[in-house]
């Protein structure tokens, strides 16, 4: 909402600067998004033109003569308040009409007049480029001054001719005092719909500065015939159209509206059209009631058909018939949503109520008699219809936020009177006012205790009463409570909590007390799930991985890249949660895989980085078998790729590539740090991973997840470009976190010496390291502290189909020094166990 301060001053006095006004409005909830200064000082933009008070003044053009040496230039004699008049050379096309007419003073032809040395915008350059006016000869005649175009003053881009000021002025008046202004831009949030007008803003300013609003006059001089019997109104839906008022104004002349009105409309962001349209817009902007003008003769001609020459014009508001369309005044033929309330007559639809007029019934250049409509509409219904129609209009903006029915008749009267004054119309006597169910206004009981309970302020009844009365509430002090009635322009007050907000606004949010919370502290609860999740993140970060957070919206196609073309099933065959209104084609469904997200990030980073170590903890979304809401499940995904070592100058940058065992080391480190003890790994197969390098992670019997080297075709599909193998993992975070013991028991630290024994065992090639280690640990008992594999050998020394695994075994007792004999015995047991259970033999 654009509010020119010059216009606002019609209704309320403003002595503070625009910036100060912007501040008090903002604190009171009318957020000022910006202040646009015109010609006067103010604001932060140092480059903006400020009109010089001495050298940029109102000039009166007294005479226009032909330039002796140039056909396309004229000489204008200007009175500007100086000792003498000034002759200035100009090529302004709009002055040629006054050539050789002698004295023009009776025409009151005023224009902005700039004197030598003043700063202006250059009218001949694109955009706003400043220049200083210098005297120079123009075809033989010295020219020191200039009559200005709107562009030269920074008012618009118009440089077609000089600006003509309509009205009465004293030549020499500083232009700042005539056209200087500031326009404040207010964000109309839904609860301040009442402020979507200049008067609406004036009410707030008045309340905040201790004034009363000077309302525009709603008196109308009615000199035409009685309107009664000429127009009949009915509605099928008083809930959607609670009030409809109509007036008839005859004999209007379609001419441009007065300059002051055009200027105000332009400052408020409206394009002037002609006096009838402009008055309609002006009244809407001024007091907030959108109104509409129909061509009365058009309606009359139709009434002649359906009601006969003596019957009234019959306005009916109703919902559309099936398949009904309306061509709106912007020329678009519109299919109508079933909620669209229409203004019609028995012959057909005339306009979309509260949203936009129809083309057929709108006023044309030939219109002289108008039917003026000012009505009230259900805001929810208007919003729904305007949204479905995808139709934005100033009327729709206001009606979809709510305009109180009380405003309808005021809007009608104000517009009618302006049509009389400015368009030469005759207002017919009376107003047709259809208001079948005028609502009862119920007063609310507000106590000082309630103001204290919610607002935290100690106030007396008298203080509260004054604050609410400043906002035009009616307040009756009953001693124990205040009986408060809302003013008739407000729709947003539904209870005492709303009144408390009004009191807080008037008291000043910045003055409200500020205290430490004294209320009972609720029972304190830990969020174990979150704490565990954060612990997992910290462990992975310590292992050198970077956390990422990805978009949770993706597409099935993007996730299908996890499978080499033509192989395997998608990550989960449950349906995706799919958007009905995606904003971009690549964010349509909620993800099923976090690994796909991490691989996408890996690919994006692989263009400029070779070593990439990432993890993400996040949700996936799987349609649920019960209910409409999906299961939201935590997943941990992790990707490693690139060289093991960072580049170092001594080694010339050589480093082995990260491989499966780096990934496995990270997983083992994580499991170890979480003190989970039933973790194991077994070989597995999955199309995302490279066959032979894929493993299933197990917690007991349950599958925790899969890890391995990502299949080369999958790497290619994701377009990871660093040239290294890519290791990946995705695991079920819920299962992992559930397995974390709340605490664990430590191993006592012993000072008795440890004894190291090596053992090399030959087993079948297909026997796994996990099987061998399990047997070693089973046989080793509590004295066996550590088992460390240090060599794996396959070759002729051990024979075909065999392999040798060599281990460092560490034995240590918590309570004595072990002897060689103790250790030998233990080692013997281990070897025997392996021989018995795995067919192993000691390597020679």
């Amino acid at each position, binding site marked *: 909402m654009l509010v020119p301060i010059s216009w606002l001053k019609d209704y309320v006095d403003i002595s503070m600067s625009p910036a100060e006004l912007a501040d008090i409005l903002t604190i009171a909830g009318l957020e000022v998004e910006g202040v646009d200064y015109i010609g006067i000082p103010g604001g932060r933009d140092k480059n903006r033109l400020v009109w010089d008070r001495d050298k940029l003044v109102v000039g009166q053009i007294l005479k226009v003569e032909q330039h002796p040496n140039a056909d396309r230039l004229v000489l204008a004699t200007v009175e500007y308040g100086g000792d003498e008049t000034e002759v200035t050379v100009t090529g302004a096309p709009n002055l040629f009409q006054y050539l050789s007419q002698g004295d023009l003073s009776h025409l009151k032809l005023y224009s902005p007049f700039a004197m030598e040395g003043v700063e202006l915008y250059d009218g001949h350059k694109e955009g706003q480029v400043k220049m200083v006016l210098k005297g120079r000869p123009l075809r033989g005649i010295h020219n020191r001054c200039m009559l200005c175009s709107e562009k030269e003053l920074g008012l618009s881009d118009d440089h077609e001719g000089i600006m003509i000021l309509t009205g009465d002025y004293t030549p020499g008046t500083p232009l700042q005092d005539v056209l200087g202004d500031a326009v404040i831009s207010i964000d109309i949030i839904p609860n301040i719909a009442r402020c979507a007008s200049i008067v609406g803003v004036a009410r707030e300013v008045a309340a905040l500065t201790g004034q009363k609003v000077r309302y525009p006059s709603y008196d109308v001089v009615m000199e035409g015939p009685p309107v009664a019997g000429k127009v009949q109104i009915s509605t099928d839906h008083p809930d959607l159209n609670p009030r409809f008022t109509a007036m008839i104004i005859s004999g209007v002349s379609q001419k441009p509206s007065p300059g002051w009105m055009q200027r105000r409309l332009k400052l408020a962001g409206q394009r002037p059209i002609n006096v009838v349209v402009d008055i309609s817009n002006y009244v809407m902007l001024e007091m907030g009631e959108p109104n509409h003008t129909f061509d009365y003769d058009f309606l009359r001609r139709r009434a002649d058909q359906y009601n006969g020459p003596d019957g009234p014009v019959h306005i009916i508001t109703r919902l559309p018939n099936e398949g009904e369309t309306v061509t709106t005044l912007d020329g678009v033929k519109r299919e109508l949503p079933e909620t669209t309330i229409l203004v019609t007559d028995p012959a057909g639809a005339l306009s979309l109520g509260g949203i936009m007029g129809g083309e057929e019934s709108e006023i044309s250049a030939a219109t002289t008699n108008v039917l003026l409509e000012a009505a009230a509409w259900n805001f929810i219904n208007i919003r729904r219809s305007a949204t479905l129609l995808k139709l934005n209009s100033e009327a729709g903006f206001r009606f979809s936020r709510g305009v109180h029915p009380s405003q309808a008749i005021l809007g009608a009267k104000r517009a009618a009177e302006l049509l009389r004054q400015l368009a030469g119309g005759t207002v017919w006597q009376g107003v047709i006012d259809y208001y079948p169910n005028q609502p009862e206004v119920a007063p609310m009981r507000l106590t000082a205790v309630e103001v204290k309970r919610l607002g935290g302020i100690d106030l007396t009844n008298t203080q509260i009463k004054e604050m609410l009365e400043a906002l035009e509430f009616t307040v009756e002090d009953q001693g124990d409570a205040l009986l408060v009635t809302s003013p008739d322009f407000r729709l947003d007050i539904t209870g005492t909590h709303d009144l408390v907000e009004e009191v807080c606004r008037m008291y000043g949010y910045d003055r409200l007390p500020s205290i430490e919370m004294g209320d009972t502290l609720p029972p304190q609860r830990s969020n174990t799930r979150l704490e565990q999740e954060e612990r997992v993140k910290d462990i992975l970060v310590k292992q050198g991985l970077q*956390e990422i957070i990805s978009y949770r919206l993706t597409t099935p196609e993007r996730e299908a890249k996890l499978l080499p073309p033509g192989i395997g099933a998608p990550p989960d065959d449950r349906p995706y949660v799919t958007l009905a209104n995606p904003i971009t084609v690549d964010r349509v469904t909620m993800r099923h895989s976090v690994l796909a997200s991490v691989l996408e990030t890996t690919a994006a980073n692989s263009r400029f980085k070779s070593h990439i170590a990432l993890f993400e903890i996040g949700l996936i979304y799987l349609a649920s078998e019960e209910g409409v809401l999906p299961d939201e499940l935590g997943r941990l995904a992790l990707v490693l790729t690139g060289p093991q070592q960072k580049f170092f100058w001594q080694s010339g940058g050589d480093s082995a590539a990260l491989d499966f065992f780096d990934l496995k080391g990270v997983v083992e480190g994580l499991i170890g740090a979480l003190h989970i003890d039933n973790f194991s790994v077994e070989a597995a197969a999955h199309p995302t991973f490279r066959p032979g390098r894929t493993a299933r992670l197990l917690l007991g019997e349950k599958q925790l997840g899969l890890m391995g080297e990502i299949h080369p075709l999958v790497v290619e599909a994701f377009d990871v470009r660093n040239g290294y193998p890519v290791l990946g993992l995705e695991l079920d975070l819920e299962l992992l976190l559930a397995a974390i013991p709340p605490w664990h028991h430590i191993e006592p630290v012993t000072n008795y010496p440890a004894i190291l024994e090596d053992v090399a065992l030959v087993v079948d090639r297909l026997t796994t390291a996990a099987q061998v280690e399990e047997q070693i640990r089973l046989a080793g008992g509590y004295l066996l502290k550590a088992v460390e594999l240090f060599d794996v050998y396959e070759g002729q020394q051990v024979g075909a189909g065999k392999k040798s695994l060599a281990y460092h075994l560490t034995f240590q007792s918590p309570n004595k020094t072990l002897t060689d004999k103790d250790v030998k015995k233990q080692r013997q047991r281990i070897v025997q166990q392996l021989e018995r259970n795995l067919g192993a033999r000691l390597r020679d």
Partner: protein
Amino acid sequence: MLAQLDELYAQSLDSLATAVNTAVLDTWYKDTLGRKGSIYLLTRQVGQLPAAERPAFGQRVNAVKQELETAYEARLAELKAAELQAEITASAIDVTLPGRKQWRGGLHVATQTLREIYRIWGDMGFQVYRSRDVETDEYNFELLNIPPHHPARDMWDTFHTTTPGVILRTHTSPGQVHAMHEYYPEPIRVILPGMCYRYEQITARSELQFHQVEGLAVGKNISMADLKGTLTDFARRMFGAERQVRFRANYFPFTEPSAEMDVECIICGGDGCNVCKYTGWVEILGCGMVHPTVLRNGGYDPAVYSGFAFGMGPERIAMLKYRIDDIRYFWGNDLRFLEQF
């Protein structure tokens, strides 16, 4: 023979002094004091001396040996020190050469900011309560006093799913009602962090997904004054103890009275800059007293209970603190960005 011994002693001392390194010194020792060294060879000739001279000669030999041993030790120490010095000198390195880099992991900046928020609110007795991303229209809007087609809905551009009535939450406010249902009739202090979604083009200033942290306090003795005090404490801890805050009226359907809290611009300190659009203030959070309808929907009687709620954007806070000028960095996950935190 004594003269011979003295001469040998003198010669040995001379050659000891000329031993240039420990290897030459070893040879000298072998040749002089070793088992077949010159001193030994001379002593073998003791038989040629008259018996009376032998004790004196013997004493003298022992003295010479002793002195030569001492001289040798001294010379050895000297040479070792010189050799160590030489080795140290030769092995000096250029300490300005680059070090051997370690892989350094890190938390996403959004996680770091969220943790800071958790910590501050945790100290004030507000615990983390999380709820789902995919929500019903009922919890996201209706129970929060936003009926269907209400103009307030324009404040949230919503992603709808193909299941009618199921949407991606536009704010973490649905958690308010979930928490109230769970905790009634206890007093409540929770914060509600989570990912939210809006139907918005992805630009430097807007994202279709972002974190939000809401807060909710419900009790029998909570007013706007508590809200102001508590949020001011938060702002001072988040942005610095000297930071000014201001409250101004605003609108949210689920609070009444509603307010917006601005913090003195942390870039310009309030003087005005393009970050604060020359107002000196930046919007940090929306807040207000929980609307009676919302309290009632949560099971709390608004005549008895009151409470306040607030909501903030961790990414926006991080953008201000680190001067991040493009919100797309957050989910872009470019390591060149993430590794700066």
